[in-house]
């Protein structure tokens, strides 16, 4: 802006540079002016002096002044433009004085009048505007032309008469100011009109210089024209990132308000396609990944997400509470010259490092194992897992050991952790980290995670940080942008499903303090997260529970054409652009039954069978159980039968003086379980060879053989019905479908012996409780007959000590207490 030649303001006087400058024309014209006392004894104002000088110089001044009018429109326009620009940019208030001053100087006439003047000078003004823009000359011109302007406004010929021009201008300005407040909006719209007129003109200049953008009102939005398809190829050859970036913003703006801003004849898909290509070019993504991201995020978030991936996340570290406290560690690090802060109220051990004068990974505290460099999002799954002391924990994919060590510190080095990883080189870092941090309760192993329940199972809690595509940590590894495609994602998903099923099988559902599994990935793809979790929910007896993390976005329950289980809302997603941590997904499962729902395949593992806490009978296994039972029976390993039968037999023998009679009763009681009966009969048949005890066998087999045909032939249908009913009644045991499972899980009610007659069930059932211990909790079939039975059975049920004991103690003798 030019100097304010505001006559109402007192000019600074003094030897200072600014004061001299503010003197106005005096200094410049001093050479032309005579000495002070020349004309008047009184001190003339600068204008007066100028006029005097002009008069004196006569023709010498004329050409200058003649020059000025031509410059006037320019300069007048210029300050106006400047003031307009100033109006826009600094904000109304700040610029108001400028605006008024400019107006006062430049537009003593009503606004419109000056507009006209402006307009006629427009042609000249346009060309020179750019040149004069921001140049010092403009100031000089403005300064010099103050008098000239007033001259031109006053028709040039007018000499100072009653009022000096400056006084006239001042008066007008005062009037303007008075009106300005009221007319501010009016003037502004005028400004806008002018600017809109201006904007098309600088349009052609726009491409040349970005300065031209200043003239353009930000609020004015040119309709964005989607370039025709032909131009797209052009971009591929010589991508101009600036233009692409601008175009991205434009398209996002258009799409945000598509109804009004769209270009006629262009579909949304075209805009989206263009946007996808531009984003891929600008941020260097592969098309596949970008397409996936566009499905995942709304457009505004998408750009933020992409931007966030360009920037690394802040470095965070976790205090090792086995060796130090966060407060002490923070103090020690600050003394070394590290600038840090606590991570947030959700973490008691986290610290975020802003900057550091020493390498964070090499301080003596690091080497002493006082802290571990770990991403903030990696602390979350362990917090969700919440390991307790003296538990057995499995960490299936533990490298480089950050989560394992966090688990150990939460457990205070009690219990046992089995840290496993399939990658031998990364295991070295696990060992190193664990030793450095002083973790002593860990075993490190090198298995493929899918082998797990076979090697060792029965853990209280399991953490599975599955290998993934890494789309949440793009800021750490930009190669992910381009080298991931459909096959990779599906391969990862397949591996994750297998690992998750193995992990579920390794959890002991009957653990007193546990039975939890946390599944997490550092990826944001739905195929690797919600889909895998949903698959596990269908395939195993698990359910999702809240993770305990109160922040983070909920997982999706539906995504495009897929629909997931509603409990997926308790899973959590984290994004780099919303939470400033790596992209992450966390799901926490609770296993409520150790049995594995069978789907017409080989019998499940009896090894993991234990009485389940809550039975969740899935209808489909039940329905298929009946026909499947026979098949299962055939497939059944004799071992299972033996296991089951032995204690039963032992108990029976002991309990019942008359084995046969008892068996008969038991047989009767087992009537309800049709399939059981069938199976049992078949089992019994197969058993005899296995059984060491010969006593019962012949009896049993004899009995069975007599009974089985009856059972099978006549009662099948009835049994099925009963079974179904019973199943509903049963509360304890889960719907154990597999025969083996049922055997393992003992329901007090189901302590019906496999042999069984269907008839006379009632009587037998009454007696049964006393005799039988639930040997084979086959199914809780036969609701109605079971009713009383269950009641009577309950005392037995209580005496039914955990099956685990029974199973373990395969010896005959151990079964005795059970029956008592």
């Amino acid at each position, binding site marked *: 802006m030019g100097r304010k030649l505001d006559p109402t303001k007192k000019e600074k006087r003094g030897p200072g540079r600014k004061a001299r400058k503010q003197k106005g024309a005096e200094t410049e014209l001093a050479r032309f002016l005579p000495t002070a006392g020349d004309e008047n004894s009184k001190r003339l104002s600068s204008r007066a002096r100028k006029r005097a000088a002009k008069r004196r110089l006569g023709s010498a001044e004329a050409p200058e002044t003649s020059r000025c009018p031509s410059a006037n429109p320019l300069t007048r326009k210029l300050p106006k433009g400047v003031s307009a620009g100033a109006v826009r940019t600094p904000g109304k208030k700040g610029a108001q004085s400028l605006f008024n001053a400019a107006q006062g100087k430049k537009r003593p006439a009503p606004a419109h009048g000056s507009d006209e003047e402006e307009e006629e000078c427009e042609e000249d003004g346009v060309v020179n505007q750019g040149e004069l823009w921001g140049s010092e000359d403009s100031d000089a011109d403005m300064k010099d032309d103050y008098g000239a302007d007033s001259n031109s406004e006053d028709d040039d010929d007018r000499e100072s008469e009653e009022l000096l021009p400056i006084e006239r201008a001042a008066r007008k300005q005062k009037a303007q100011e008075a009106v300005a407040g009221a007319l501010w909006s009016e003037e502004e719209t005028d400004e806008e009109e002018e600017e809109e007129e201006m904007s098309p003109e600088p349009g052609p200049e726009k491409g040349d210089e970005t300065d031209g953008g200043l003239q353009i009102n930000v609020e004015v939005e040119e309709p964005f024209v989607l370039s025709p398809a032909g131009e797209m190829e052009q971009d591929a050859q010589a991508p101009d990132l600036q233009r692409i970036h601008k175009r991205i913003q434009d398209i996002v703006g258009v799409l945000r308000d598509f109804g009004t801003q769209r270009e006629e004849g262009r579909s949304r898909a075209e805009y989206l396609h263009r946007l996808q290509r531009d984003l891929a070019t600008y941020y260097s993504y592969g098309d596949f990944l970008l397409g996936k991201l566009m499905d995942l995020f709304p457009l505004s978030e998408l750009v933020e997400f992409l931007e966030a991936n360009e920037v690394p996340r802040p470095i965070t570290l976790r205090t090792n509470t086995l060796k130090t406290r966060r407060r002490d560690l923070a103090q020690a690090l600050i003394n070394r010259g590290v600038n840090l802060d606590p991570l947030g109220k959700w973490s008691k051990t986290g610290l975020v490092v802003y900057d550091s004068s020493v390498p964070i990974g090499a301080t*003596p505290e690091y*080497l*002493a*194992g006082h802290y571990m460099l770990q991403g903030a999002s990696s602390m979350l799954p362990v917090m969700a897992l919440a390991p307790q002391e003296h538990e*057995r924990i499995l960490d299936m994919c533990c490298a480089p050991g950050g989560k394992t060590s966090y688990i150990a510190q939460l457990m205070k080095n009690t*219990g*046992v952790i*089995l840290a496993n990883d399939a990658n031998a080189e990364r*295991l*070295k*870092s*696990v*060992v*190193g*980290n*664990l*030793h*450095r941090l*002083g973790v*002593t*309760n*860990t*075993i*490190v*192993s*090198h*298995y493929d995670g899918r082998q797990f329940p076979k*090697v*060792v199972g029965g853990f209280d809690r399991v953490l599975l940080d599955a290998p993934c595509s890494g789309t949440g940590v793009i800021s750490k590894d930009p190669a992910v942008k381009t080298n991931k495609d459909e096959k990779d994602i599906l391969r990862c998903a397949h591996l994750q499903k297998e690992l998750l099923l193995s992990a579920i099988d390794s959890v002991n559902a009957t653990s007193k303090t546990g039975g939890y599994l946390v599944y997490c990935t550092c990826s944001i793809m739905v195929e690797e997260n919600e889909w895998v979790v949903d698959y596990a929910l269908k395939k195993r007896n698990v359910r999702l529970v809240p993770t305990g993390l109160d922040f983070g976005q909920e997982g999706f329950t539906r995504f495009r054409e897929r629909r997931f289980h509603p409990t997926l809302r308790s899973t959590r997603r984290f994004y780099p652009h919303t939470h400033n941590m790596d992209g992450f997904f966390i799901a926490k499962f609770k296993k409520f039954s150790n049995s594995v729902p069978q789907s017409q395949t080989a019998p499940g593992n009896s090894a993991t069978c234990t009485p389940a806490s809550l039975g969740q009978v899935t209808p489909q296994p039940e329905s298929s159980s009946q026909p499947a039972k026979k098949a299962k029976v055939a497939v059944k390993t004799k071992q299972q039968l033996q296991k089951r039968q032995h204690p039963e037999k032992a108990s029976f023998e002991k309990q019942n003086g008359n084995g046969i009679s008892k068996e008969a009763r038991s047989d009767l009681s087992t009537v309800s379980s049709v399939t059981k009966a069938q199976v049992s009969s078949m089992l019994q048949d197969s058993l005899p060879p296995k059984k060491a005890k010969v006593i019962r066998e012949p009896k049993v087999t004899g009995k069975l053989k007599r009974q089985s045909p009856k059972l099978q032939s006549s009662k099948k249908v009835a049994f099925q019905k009963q079974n179904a009913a019973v199943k509903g009644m049963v509360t304890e045991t889960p719907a154990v479908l597999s025969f083996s499972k049922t055997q393992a899980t003992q329901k007090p009610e189901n302590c019906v012996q496999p042999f069984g007659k269907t008839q006379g069930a009632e009587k037998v059932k009454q007696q049964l409780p006393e005799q039988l211990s639930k040997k084979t909790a086959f199914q809780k079939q036969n609701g109605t007959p079971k009713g009383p039975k269950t009641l009577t059975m309950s005392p037995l049920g209580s005496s039914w000590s955990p099956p685990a004991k029974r199973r373990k103690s395969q010896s005959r003798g151990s079964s005795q207490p059970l029956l008592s």
Partner: protein
Amino acid sequence: MRPLTEEETRVMFEKIAKYIGENLQLLVDRPDGTYCFRLHNDRVYYVSEKILKLAANISGDKLVSLGTCFGKFTKTHKFRLHITALDYLAPYAKYKVWIKPGAEQSFLYGNHVLKSGLGRITENTSQYQGVVVYSMADIPLLYSAIIIYCIGSEAKDIQLPVAGSPDHSMDTQQRS
């Protein structure tokens, strides 16, 4: 994974005794359970019995590490103590050496400590005695050096070779 043989046990205990004297029994019978040493791939691991039970299920070629690694046997059956054993030796150390904060950093990075850098030292420490080095804040060994040979303690210079020296094996495994 197998228990140590007689010979190996003897060798190992001799080494450890240099630092903690005859207090070996304290290592084995601890209030929170019995601990034992197991050998796996020439490394000696110090584990509690609870962990041992679970580890027994893991096949030998898949087992990488148990509990804490105390050290390893070299090819010629000498025993090298590792820095990871520090936490267990430190409480029972017979001879201790404290060094001043100024000398601490240089010691950490592998230099000898001169007599002037010594803060305190246990009485009757003879030459070539194995000592445990502490910082003035009683942090043991500053993690770097376990075995320090005190050379010429009566002399003006006490040179304490540090872990970085060829005497000690700092495996990359531990450092990673």
